[in-house]
């Protein structure tokens, strides 16, 4: 994400993950870590995958639309995604 020039606060990530998990879009498993407490590894559920596909489609449509609209001027700053997906 950092590479994509997308600065996101870690603190915002955890509530999002929890909410997605509560919505049934994600599951997680515990993995022992040698540098700290055990870590949670999140995986998308089937429902999550389905939803992801939907989102991706909508996003593509939107991005295309924006792209077409901003093509001539081309002054739009680098894309600003607002979709926190792991």
């Amino acid at each position: 994400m950092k590479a994509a020039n997308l600065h996101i606060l870690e603190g915002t990530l955890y509530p999002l993950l929890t909410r997605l998990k509560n919505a049934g879009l994600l599951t997680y498993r515990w993995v022992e870590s040698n540098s700290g407490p055990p870590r949670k590894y999140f995986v998308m559920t089937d429902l999550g995958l389905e939803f992801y596909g939907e989102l991706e489609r909508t996003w593509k449509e939107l991005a295309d639309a924006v792209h077409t609209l901003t093509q001539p001027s081309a002054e739009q700053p680098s894309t600003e995604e607002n979709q926190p997906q792991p």
Partner: protein
Amino acid sequence: MKKVININFQGRVIPIEETAYDILKQYVESLRRFFANEEGRDEIINDIEGRIAELFGESLKKGDTCITDETVNKIIASMGRPEDFEGEEANVKSQLGGEGNQQQYNSGYNAYANDPRGRLYRNDTDKLLGGVCSGIANYLRVDPTIVRLVFALMVFGAGTGIFLYILLWIILPSKPLVTNISSKRLYRNPDEKVIAGVASGISAYFDIAIWIPRLIFALPLVSGIASSIFRHSFWWDGDPFPGVVFGSFGGTLFVVYAILWAVIPEAKSASEKLEMRGEKVDLNTIKNTIQEDLEGFKSRAEKWGGEVNEKAQEWSKEFTSTVNEKGKQFTSEVNYAARKTGGGVFKIFGFIFKAFFLFIAGIIAFALLVALLAFLVAGIGVFPLKNFFLEGFWQNFLAWSTLLLFLGVPVIGFTTWLIRRIMGVKSGNKSVGFTFAGMWVLGLISAGILAFMIAENFDARARDKQPLTITQPATGKLIIKVPDSKVKVYGRWFKMDGLLSMTDDSLFLNNVRIHLVKSNDSIFHMDATKYSNGSDESSALRNIKEMNYGISQQDSTVWLDRGFSLQRGTKFRNQGVVVTIYIPIGKRILIDRTVQRRLNHFDVNNGRNDWDSDEDWNDNYGWDSDVEYKMTAGGLERSDKKVKTVDESQNDENKENQEALDNYKKSKEDLKKEFEKKQKEVEDLKKELEKPIDSTQYHYKKATAVNAPMAPETTTQLEDILDSHMLLMQMIL
């Protein structure tokens, strides 16, 4: 140089600087507040803590000996503070949950001026009783304390506050609201408190030196105590307390303090303490370039938010799971509410009890202090009397040490403590306190010894009965009077019941009692029994010998001495005189009111009831002054006619009443008859009127002629009735 503590953080022991720990704690607390209404709050915070723990681990692995402020601040900066991810949160929220949680964010973490107001709720998260006040405050976007104060004033002012509150409590729905005031709040400061930290909280709120509000609160109170003590010490008439606390201006402030105490919340957590000082919750974090960077991003993201919102709402409709979720949410909310109400009741009771007990405790402590001060002043006042109480060097020494150590030390100690607290000086060493305590204990011991020694001096008791010669009154009636004193010394130092007056070298006592007894023969007798205490019988007898008490007679009037004086050198040992008057049967006696006014009986009871159960004094009769009594075979009887006359006058009144009643009845009957008569006349007139028209005029004239004199007659009659009625009423009254 910083202190390092070990904490158990996410199952790992982490050495951390104390200040860094404080920062971390604040941070986690602020997160907890931010996610207060989030369903998976604990999980989120757990996750974040886990991440922080991981970062800590990395930092320690790198070779840091402990976690420093810098490390914590860096981590917090990368995690983001609540206010940093708030904007994004709002967006994501609407994206994900639909309208589910929207409401909570209407009153978001910080107040947005253009936020919709929403409805008026009772606040479930911040409440003293029902959350009415803080709900209103939330609605008006003001400090709940202000609203609470207004209500408290209404309660104390007119009492309407209670009803209004209860009404609102019933009407308004309850809802956990998130605080929406970002500015300073009024808290009580528990760190710097004398009583409850009200004054220091106020000083923090208004940014003034701490001693100013304290002085404002304390000064009238202190001056009230002082003035009341000086008022009461010389004219001691019992309870000085209500006057001090409730009567004066100081009392008003006392009540104000109590209200503020109840209304203003205590700044318990670190963030509340920061709020109290009006500083942002993240005091110790570095607000620098990183944050500004983020802010730029936030505003850009927010722009986006609007557009994304619309889309998101469309998607959210497609969620079948939303319904399920909502159902779940509802049940959990109901559970939560039920729990809260249960807790609320306890909270209310707890609060009321706390306030009550604190109030009582405060009053008791205050009363003790006042009593102590009063004793001190009284002690100083009594001190000139000490020569009449005390014997020898040791008793004098003990008296001094009692006065200075037992009474003086606490007063001085408390005063210094109060001044130090008001000025905010913290005492560094406890030795001063120990010294004071030690001195006070010494004072206590000397007071005990002194009391014991004095009690020893009062141990034995003796009395001496001497007949007083009187001539028999020619009228058969004896009048007892006490003359006006030639020399008047009014409380040069001190006035106490029984001690009439004192000068530096003599003490004048009027401890004289009068007993009326039936005489065995046919003449009046009088005798005076002098009694005194002493350390043993001989000293008690010696004390009696020093006493001079006599009478003088003028015809049938006997003048009793006003009292007896103790010369310097003689000690006060509960000396007293009982004048016994033997009244023969058939003779009368009158005791003037000067006797009761000028003689004063008191008794220092040493616990042994060996005195009053003695002799024939049990047969004595009670008497009132200025009443003539007659001795009969059956005992002493009032010889005045007062009682009888009262009866007679009552009878008279009754008779009058009866007469008035009769009059009234009679007049009523008369009136009835009169009325019937008139009615008949009227009917006659009517009949006549119904006759042919040509005669109408005449008859009409006649009718008016009949009616005209009738009117005044009836009014006079009525007046009569009224008069008699009034008379009757007066009689009854």
